[in-house]
């Protein structure tokens, strides 16, 4: 019974969805912290607005890539799951 559950690729598709959600939570926390700190820094030093914004966008892009890892892995699981089903 357990084996048949493990072999069922539809659960893999479900797991892909749950994983995407977890990755989105992580990336959301990361980007939120970056954005919050950048806002604070801009409020303290409005003259450094441009520099802070550039740095913020770059770091946000680095965090976003982690979220996109989740997208790619979920897509791979999804295609494998639908091909097996």
């Amino acid at each position: 019974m357990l084996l048949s559950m493990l072999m069922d690729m539809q659960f893999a598709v479900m797991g892909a969805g749950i994983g995407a959600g977890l990755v989105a939570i992580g990336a959301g926390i990361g980007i939120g912290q970056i954005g919050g700190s950048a806002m604070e820094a801009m409020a303290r030093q409005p003259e450094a607005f441009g520099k802070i914004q550039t740095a913020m966008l770059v770091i946000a892009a680095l965090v976003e890539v982690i979220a996109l890892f989740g997208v790619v892995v979920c897509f791979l699981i999804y295609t494998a799951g639908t091909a097996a089903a």
Partner: protein
Amino acid sequence: MSGEKKNMTKSGAFKICKELIMCGLICLFSMSSLQQAYASDVSEGEGFNPGDMINHHIKDAHGWEITHGVVVPLPIILYSEPDGLMIFSSSNFFNNAHEEVAYKGYLLSHEYISRADGQPVYDFSITKNVLFIFIDASIMLLIFFAVARGYKKNAGKAPKGIQSLFEPVIIYIRDEVVKPSIGDNYQKYLPYLLTLFFFIWFGNLLGLIPGAANMTGNIAVTAVLALGTFFITNFSGKKAYWSHIFWTPGVPWWLRPIILPVELIGVLTKPVSLMVRLFVSITAGHIVVLSLVSLTFIFHSWMVGFGSTVIVTLITIIELLVATIQAYVFTMFTSLYIGMAVEEHH
């Protein structure tokens, strides 16, 4: 007495855990059967498969399919022991009804060319991605020869036309990215880093055009770009760089057997992280856009189509930003690694 109580609460907690797990399993199995019923229902009619559609769009191909059914054939270049070098058009692999047919003993199936007799074939074809590398390179040649002509003609005067469009970008990369991270000897590496930035940037932007290839989202392309970084970093490594790897300063002797492999792996992880970052960010951007587009066909509804069009527009605007930022990040990290390698001492 208290021990007994503890035991009881423990067994109680265990019981609750067991019940929860059982409930979960029952839920899962009932869902599984439900899903299977649903799946068998769908498979009766030829359903729309978003996975296949997306895979078809993000992968390399032997022909350039601009829209559905409009395919530009590309040259196939093959080498195999019995036949030697062979060059022919990829349209030979399809008959008039767009069915896969064998040509001179070769068969193209799922973008993989094989011989009917099973002997190895080396495929050097101009695929869709290779074509887009050529297009990217020729756009760069056109633009930057024009920019260079502008500098010759307007020497000492204000920049004009396309020259004034690209001058701020070039100056930005030089002054904000390359100079601070490499230091005094930056001019030796500036041409490569500018080429790298514009190649990735134009490649990313080309990939966003509907019908175009996902060129910078191909792991082979990003691997070659990362190899460039790897070779330049290690060949321009000074004494301080290598001594930092093989004889890390300020480390106790018993830690050296651990630090040395870590530092050696670190040499490899730098280009690998560059490769994977660019590949993932561009490919995943395409996957997200195409998934949102396929929502329309999954739900068969014009209202969903309207909604997904709005979201896809917004995502595409973000993708324009990502295209620039990823090119910037790749250039910045490459110049940081080169800067670490050429640093004399700290």
